[in-house]
């Protein structure tokens, strides 16, 4: 059974179908990719999964348990964590405090482990800086550390690599593989196709709110519909 299972998810914003009967799964111990052009509905799906948005149809379940009626915080307590594309940090707090807030909610981590998590994402040098002073790339890493502090079973990442340079992106890729190796289910939304192709075990491609392809990197890369959606360009190049 997949750790996260979305089936038939449909969302419409005033007649505009942002998601149309979308099925996405993410397995324990794997990095699953979700890619698609701008406005395809990726972030919308994340919002549905974590409960910030109610779908008009469809079921989301976590480890076989249906989440549909649960508020966001209860879903989080069942092992769901996410980062935000448009950063949602606690700007008045330091890096350490941001992560502590998450760790303290259910006492998932002590102070020492919090420091370890921050080091793990590569922010040890800025641990006591206020997060609203960080550049975007590092701020995204804080979001990852904060999500990890809840010890999630499923981790949703919304464009974590935007704002990172190439070396930092590689570090991130390595971290995601490590997390998967530890058994976590990682669902990655990312525009950096190279990263996605490198780290993902399975890739879903979303276009205009519909899943147009599912498969491993090689399959997706050669899929006609995917190539059409990306106008042939970016996938070939990478």
């Amino acid at each position, binding site marked *: 059974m997949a750790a996260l299972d979305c089936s038939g998810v449909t969302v419409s914003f005033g007649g505009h179908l942002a998601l149309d009967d979308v099925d996405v799964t993410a397995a324990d111990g794997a990095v699953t990719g979700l890619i698609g052009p701008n406005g395809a509905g990726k972030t919308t799906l994340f919002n549905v999964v974590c409960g910030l948005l109610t779908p008009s149809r469809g079921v989301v379940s976590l480890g076989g348990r249906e989440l549909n009626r649960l508020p966001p*915080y209860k879903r989080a307590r069942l092992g769901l*964590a996410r980062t935000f594309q448009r950063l*949602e940090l*606690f700007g008045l707090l330091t890096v350490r405090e941001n992560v502590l807030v998450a760790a*303290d909610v259910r006492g998932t981590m002590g102070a020492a482990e919090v420091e370890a998590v921050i080091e793990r994402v*590569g922010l040890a*040098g800025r641990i006591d800086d206020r997060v609203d002073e960080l550049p975007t790339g590092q701020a995204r890493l804080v979001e990852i550390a*904060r*999500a990890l502090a809840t010890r999630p079973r499923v981790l949703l990442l919304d464009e974590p690599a935007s704002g990172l340079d190439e070396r930092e992106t590689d570090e991130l890729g390595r971290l995601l593989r490590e997390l998967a190796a530890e058994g976590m289910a990682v669902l990655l939304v990312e525009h950096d196709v190279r990263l996605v192709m490198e780290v993902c075990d399975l890739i879903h491609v979303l276009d205009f709110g519909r899943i147009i392809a599912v498969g491993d990197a090689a399959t997706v890369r050669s899929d006609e519909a995917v190539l059409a959606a990306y106008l042939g360009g970016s996938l070939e190049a990478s």
Partner: protein
Amino acid sequence: MVLAAWLAQGLGPALDASSDVDKFLSFTVAGLSVAAILAVGASGLVLTYTTTGVFNFAHGAIGMLGAFAYWQLRFDWGWPAPLAIATVLFVLGPLFGALLELVIFRGLQQTTETVKLVVTVSLLFSLIGLANWVWDPDVLRRDAKFLSGRGFDVAGVAVTWHEFITIVVAVAVAAGLRVLLYHTRAGIAMRAAVDDRPLAALNGARPDRSSMLAWAIGSSLAALSGILFVGTISLAPAPMSLLIVNAYAAAMIGRLRSLPMTFVGALVLGLTEGYLRGYLSDWTDNNQYFDSTFVSAVPVIVLFVVLLVLPSARLRAHGTARTREVVPMPSMRGAFTFAAVVVAGTALAIPLLTTANAVTMGRMYGLAIVALALVPLIGLAGQVSLAHWSLAGIGAVTMAHLGTGGSPMGIVWAFVFTALVGALIALPTLRLSGIYLALATAAFAVFLDRWVFRLRPFDLPFTDVKIALFGTGSVGVPDLKLFGYTFDTYYRQLMLMATTFALMSVFVVWLRRSRFGRRLLAMKDSPAACATVGMNLTMTKLTIFAVSAGMAGIGGALIGSLQGSTNQQNWEFTVGLPVFMVAVVGGIQRVGGALFAGISLAVLAAMPDWPVLRNVSWFPNLATVTPGLMGIGLGRNPNGAVADMREAFEPLARARAVFLAFLAALGALYLYVVTSDVGAWWLIIGGVVLLLGATAFVQSRARGADTGAAGPQPMFAGDELEWVGIDRPFTPDDLAALDDRLGALEVR
């Protein structure tokens, strides 16, 4: 009375049916004319809000000012009505609006919601003060209907020209706004500015000009509604400024965006009011609790309900800009020191205080406690409440009734009961934030003002508990008795209040430092992220609302005790606004900001009685307006005045020797003042001189040290990091400094 109503009802069918119809129709006309006034007021509000992103709490006060200006021209100076009206609507109103935009509101789009709120609330407060200053409040100004109240009959229903004109005016305003917004360049530019200011600017529109136009038209519409009101009510600055709260309800039905829906909202509210005035006593069998005070509370109930049922996604306020807000992290040691200084300072002051000054100082701590209650709520959690003064009133009433004989249970109940009421307000408003939360809490406060606090004594349903909030107008509040010790002099009460404030300050600092405090700050920035890490926002908000309300309740109970008795007017919405305003001016994130609020307000209230000022006739008015001016002028600094003061005086506290010398001099001065009879003034004046002198000394010394050291500085003392490693080997410290400077990630 009841008998008469019963008879009338019984006879109803027997009466001529046409008289029932007439009655219905005449209340319909009355309702329509109320609706028309509300529509005009609300549409101005919506226009400025959509164009500039500022929800103008002072809109009603501008209308009030317009009404007074009209009165001045029309009746005091005897101008013909059309000329007076045209002058107010087309000259004074627009000029005033444009001036407000230019002086106050330009650039305010970029600030936090709290700052916008403080500025408009302060403006509301200042304008009320200004009107009381300019126009003698004891002169009766009322019942000035157009054409001397003459009217005509339509199918047997008497309609005054005033009502007729009012309704026609509203229709004309609706048509005019439609034409303006859809068929003129200026109007289209205004609508563009709503959607995206920077974009509109890029496309060649001039958002500042659109804003100014919106403020000009908005003020003119406010003035128009004010003038129309002159026909039905007597002019009084505060109540009239709050009549606009009724229009808020209409504007909110239009979701602050849609003018047509706003007009529909006004229609619903106006007719409701008309029919309630006509029939409520019939429907409730003349129940004395559902009298005209209830009818006047209905619009705020509607406002509250509309706020609750609006879909939450729609309530995303205009994007809030990030400002550099700082929430300090005081140490517990610092908190205890502060508390000790407060208590010891008060004790030392007592020998110098006259009774009147002791009362002033007690009141200062009372106000500071209520302001302090706002610190965790607004400063930490980012939840605005405009109902805290009313909550303090509930605390005072609770102490009056349950603290019989000075029982400390009065205080305990004051805390518990206000905390419960606070939670009760918070529960339905959990979804709301920013301006909407401010409106909902304001609606609650005005609801208490207009109805609950005026209720005659009643039996609690299903029990024989008698509730008499303010008794027959005023109710005695006992002095607290604790472990056999009664706080029965003003001096003792002063010590009690100082100690309470000190303890609460320690509590607030502890809260700030706790996990819960961290959670509140997190919630202030991103509720969504809080929820997705598993935080139960409902519980968090309820808890902080309840705790904060309870603190305000204790403040109210103590203020009540100090006064000895309390009445409904003490706790009116407008009376409490300065506490909120000046607490933000002082710094809503810090305990010191609350003390700043207490000191400022208590001193301002006491100053008119000072011997030097007693004969200055205009001074009381100036003192009344000052908190508003402070809010308008200083409310923009999101970190508050206390933060700046702290910065200014910090060097002194650091310079040990000078600081000790300063304290010694202050002590000597104190001893001299206490033992001689030169008067407490000299202590204050001398203390300030000493403080400024010592600070100046420390600063000049620091400057001297700077220039002295500038010559032979080591090469890499600070900014020349790139030299390190070239002219000497790296040390681990240097590496750390390098990493720090570059903000580098550790590379492994």
